[in-house]
């Protein structure tokens, strides 16, 4: 399998405080990985560091995407190279209509169809994220990613604060973005998804899952099995049971 993302020995700090420690991860082209772990363990930091948000400082290690070292590349260059992220709490942008943003992100995108896919037609003329409810914000993020069509889609808790019906909708959009309708061998879009309770995994397909504790991965395996263990024994118990040191 072609390797899309390779993270080697990565340490990342925010405001002088180290969050990720000697972190390693490989994601093949066409694979979708789920990340589990308690709050404050570095999951969001990992996504933000891959996206290149400047206040996330890389202290050591490197991030390779499509064979290029992107460790110090600017955010917009990374996005244009094919990295896309759904923010957990995105800002509102006054005066910028969602349908106009779709066209800015991708002039060839079919805004009407994308909005319809997310049952979001009524929001095309609204300012991006302004006055949106929690669930609407998540759908707005999916709409933008559907326009962007990234090769690596990163989703930070796309299911938090979303009702059941919308979780289904978001799950199917993630499947679409990660080409789960195609045979595994012909997929070339990958994903990383952070989820606390795994609800979203009932509606989308993940190929592999990891448990993060204290800034590194402590356990990896089949998403269903790992989620079962977490539910039964908690994060630490899961790590001890499935991946004894």
């Amino acid at each position, binding site marked *: 399998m072609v390797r899309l993302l390779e993270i080697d020995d990565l340490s990342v700090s925010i405001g002088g405080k180290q969050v990720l420690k000697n972190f390693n991860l490989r994601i093949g082209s066409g694979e979708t990985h789920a990340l589990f772990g308690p709050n404050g363990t570095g999951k969001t930091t990992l996504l933000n560091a891959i996206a290149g*948000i400047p206040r996330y400082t890389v202290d050591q290690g490197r991030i390779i995407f499509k064979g290029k070292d992107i460790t110090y590349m600017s955010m*917009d260059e990374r*996005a244009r190279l094919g990295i896309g*992220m759904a923010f957990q709490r995105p*800002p509102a*942008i006054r005066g910028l209509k969602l349908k106009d943003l779709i066209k800015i*992100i991708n002039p060839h995108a079919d805004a009407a169809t994308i909005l319809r896919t997310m049952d979001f037609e009524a929001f095309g003329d609204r*300012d991006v994220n302004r006055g949106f409810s929690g669930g609407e914000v998540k759908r707005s993020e999916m709409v933008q990613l559907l326009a962007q069509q990234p090769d690596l889609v990163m989703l930070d808790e796309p299911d938090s604060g979303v009702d059941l019906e919308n979780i289904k909708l978001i799950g199917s959009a993630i499947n679409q973005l990660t080409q789960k309708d195609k045979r595994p061998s012909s997929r070339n879009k990958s994903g990383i998804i952070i989820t606390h309770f795994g609800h979203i995994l009932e509606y989308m397909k993940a190929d592999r899952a990891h448990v993060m504790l204290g800034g590194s991965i402590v356990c990896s395996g089949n998403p269903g099995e790992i989620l079962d263990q977490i539910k039964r024994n908690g994060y630490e118990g899961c790590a001890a049971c499935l991946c004894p040191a």
Partner: protein
Amino acid sequence: MPVPSIEERAERAREKKALYGTDVNLESYESEARAHEAVERAEELPGEVKKAALDVGVKLDAEASGAYVQMDQSPVVAKSLYEGVEIMDIASALKKYDFLQDYWWKLVAPDADKYTSDVAASPPAGYFIRAKKGMKTVFPVKSCLYLGSTNLNQRVHNIVIAEEGSELHVITGCTTPAHVQRGLHIGVSEFFIQKNAHVSFTMIHSWGKEVEVRPRTGITIAEGGSLSNNYILMRPVKTIQTFPTATLAGRGAVASFNTVIYSTMGNIDVGSNVYLNAPETSAESISRVVSMGGEVIARGRMTGTVPGARAHLECVGLLLSDKGRIYSIPELDGRSRDLDMSHEAAVGRISEEELEYLMARGLSSEEATSVIVRGFLDVEIKGLPEELRAEIRSITQREELKGS
């Protein structure tokens, strides 16, 4: 003691400096303008004038209720295309209608300062627009005040009357062609909005780097009447100072002022001044300023004198350069019980979070800045026909706006 005439009052104020703004030396400008031939229709105007008008959002050949164009001191087009609206040049109107003496210099004082004095002492030039009783227009009256001669002191005096129950939309573009380096524009405007009449007045300024501008505006709104006043300045100018004053004189009168400024240089001192003098009146003033340079003073003053009046001021500025200054001065003057008056003012920078969000979608830092700035300037203007709203929007959206 006899009441002094307009001429006498003007004479007395010849040297009177204005309360705000830098002082302009009137002597350094020429007061005699070359005359321009009037034309029958706006389409017959010189291409240069039509192009300049288009540049300030005034499409003279598109649908309109009428048009007025003044080149320097000469009215060249004054034409109504709709029976509900009367449009004349003010000199002809003053000759035709004796009743205009009851409106002439009634809301702006000829001795307010040296600028009003100068206009009062000159032969009248400007527009007279009257929306007739009960007549509602959908298409705007389009007007262009064109300062086409270098070093000229262009003086304008306009009267707008919206009679009872009428609806009127006016869009005015004030502009200079690129070859005019230096000039002065003084515009006196008096608006009479009568019972249950609704007026939107949109003014777009596009001047040269050595042009000075001193509008002087007075507005009165009677019972149930409303005004939506919009001012847009996106291009460089040397100095502007304006502080239109509106009096909400009748029960339930409403005024809203929207100001959009993109500053790169010069001294820009603008604002609005509203007196809420009747029960159930309300006023709102929203200004958005983006500064890449120059000094912008954004004023807003609301004075509430009766119970139940409601007023809100909002001055928000984005300061994107070390070369700029935004000085926001919101003032609330409550003079009665049971008032509801508030303001919010903020001057700051573009939020990092918004920039990063758009950059994560592939926009460069410059593109993201431009998108955020355009959105910031895109004020939702209420009470305008959709076509006019789109036209105004296109002006704030077409500019190449850059961050530092």
